[in-house]
């Protein structure tokens, strides 16, 4: 409930104004520590990252390396201990108040007393969208995630994967310029997962949204991203940022299921995998193995 409006917006704006016109997310020397009973936890240390407008960036790394924490800082759900963080050239708080991002959490986080349709409508309702417009938008979104016939069900009547799809639809409701997604496809079966991945790539390309996407799946990160950010734990650091050079994918709309079988895809999977394992390559012919076996979810 902290709706405090920051007083230093202008300073932040002038600063990033020089650095290039409004990157979606600009992070400089970001640290986050948590005080716990057993001492200080260094969740993030010295994070530098720029996500350009319209860019798709995946965060990948072992459990506990601070992926969710970084996402929460960008969303202004938590405050950094030190460092600079701007979203579209504003402070994170201002960007949140301006509703510049949509978010899907690691848990679906649906309101159990609202129907599926009412859950998707929640952000539209809170921001005063007229009910007719709301209804058509919700219908479109549910159509997209394939849950039209479940519109009037309550979340507890849905499987975990279906709930997650509702949460994804909800995060897209206001066509945000920035999408923050924390392992949104973790609970989905492989078929739905691939469909949702293809849909997400299309939506991001259509709306020109920047996406910060947390995942544990290397192929998923490779398929979706312009760049993959590899993180390491204790303290949470960025150990590598790997641009995806996929032949088939000059424009992101080119990414379809053929890409999943392209050789460049397997090469990128291997590269991310090696970065994740600290650069150590194990065994000959790693590419096909990587494609099948490294998906750690």
């Amino acid at each position, binding site marked *: 409930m902290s709706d405090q409006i920051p007083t230093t917006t202008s300073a932040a704006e002038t600063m990033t104004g020089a650095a290039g016109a409004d990157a979606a997310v600009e992070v400089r020397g970001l640290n986050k520590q948590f005080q716990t009973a057993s001492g200080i936890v260094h969740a993030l240390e010295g994070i530098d990252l720029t996500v350009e407008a319209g860019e798709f960036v995946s965060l990948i790394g072992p459990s506990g390396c601070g992926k969710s924490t970084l996402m929460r800082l960008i969303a*202004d759900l938590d405050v950094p201990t030190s460092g600079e963080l701007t979203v579209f050239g504003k402070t994170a708080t201002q960007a949140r108040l301006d509703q510049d991002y949509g978010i899907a959490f690691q848990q679906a986080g649906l309101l159990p007393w609202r129907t599926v349709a009412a859950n998707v409508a929640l952000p539209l309702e809170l921001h005063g969208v007229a009910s007719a417009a709301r209804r058509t938008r919700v219908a479109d979104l549910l159509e997209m995630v394939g849950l039209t016939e479940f519109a009037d069900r309550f979340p*507890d009547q849905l499987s975990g994967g279906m*709930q997650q799809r509702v949460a994804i639809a909800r995060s897209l409701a206001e066509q945000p310029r920035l999408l923050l997604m924390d392992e949104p496809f973790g609970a989905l079966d492989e078929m739905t997962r691939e469909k949702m991945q293809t849909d997400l790539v299309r939506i991001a390309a259509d709306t020109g949204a920047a996406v910060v996407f947390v995942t544990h799946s290397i192929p998923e990160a490779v398929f979706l991203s312009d760049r993959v950010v590899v993180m390491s734990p204790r303290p949470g650091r960025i150990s590598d940022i790997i641009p995806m050079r996929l032949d088939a994918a000059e424009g992101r709309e080119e990414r379809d299921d053929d890409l999943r079988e392209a050789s460049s895809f397997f090469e990128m999977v291997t590269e991310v995998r090696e970065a994740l394992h600290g650069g150590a390559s194990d065994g000959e012919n790693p590419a096909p193995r990587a494609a099948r076996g490294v998906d750690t979810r």
Partner: protein
Amino acid sequence: MTTNTTANAIIGAGTGATRSKDWSPRTESILRVVAPVTLGIIVLAIWQFLVTVGGVSDYLLPSPTSIMAELVAYWPAVVSATVLTGTNSLLGLLVGSLLGIILAAVAARWRIADQMSAPIIAALAVVPIVALAPVLNSMFGADSQFGRQAIAAIASFVPIFINTLRGFRQTRPVHRDLMKAYAASSGQMLRSLTLPTARPFILTGIRIASSLAVISALVAEYFGGPRGGLGSLIATSAASSAYSRAWAYVGASIALGLLFYLATLALERLVLRRVPTGGSR
């Protein structure tokens, strides 16, 4: 505070009761009505038998038939007394519910309000509210119903406040994050998240309070004030040795208490059946 544990126990019994393996749900729901009614009839029959054949003095324990006869003979008085006491209880319950919910919202929002009110609530939960009846009766005059209504209100306020406050604290972090991410105002937060989360707790509080409201409104009548309610009629009938009539009024009191309880139980079931409260992630 025992109210809390009671609330929980009742929630548990209401929603999570495990079904016996042998009976179909339909048989079971029929049995749930038939069994207590049968037991009641058997008890009444033994009672009647003891009094008429067993030779228990009519003075000590009037027979069910004589109580029925009094009930019929004094029917208009019974009805008006029930309406009077029922009105006092209902007013008390409504005012107590409103106050309980509003003050719980204040206590949930501002920690300082919670800290200031905690000892008062603890005291109210421990002190039998009807003990205030003589004081309130003399404060508001001999011909006012206000003292009784106030007592019913205070008595029902306590469990509703405690349960509602607990309910307000059940919001989940992911839901609070969500509302914050949407930059929801505190009013929107209350309407869209806090109140719906607390709804089952509020309803349980109201159900517990409903019985308390009837009991305290009725017992308050024992301590003077205007005549005409069930409590004062039970007292005067017993004082003039009209025991069957006193029992007839007792019967009406039980019916009134049951009516309040069942009405609030039905409200709770109705709301919670239509609107799920949990199970999603």
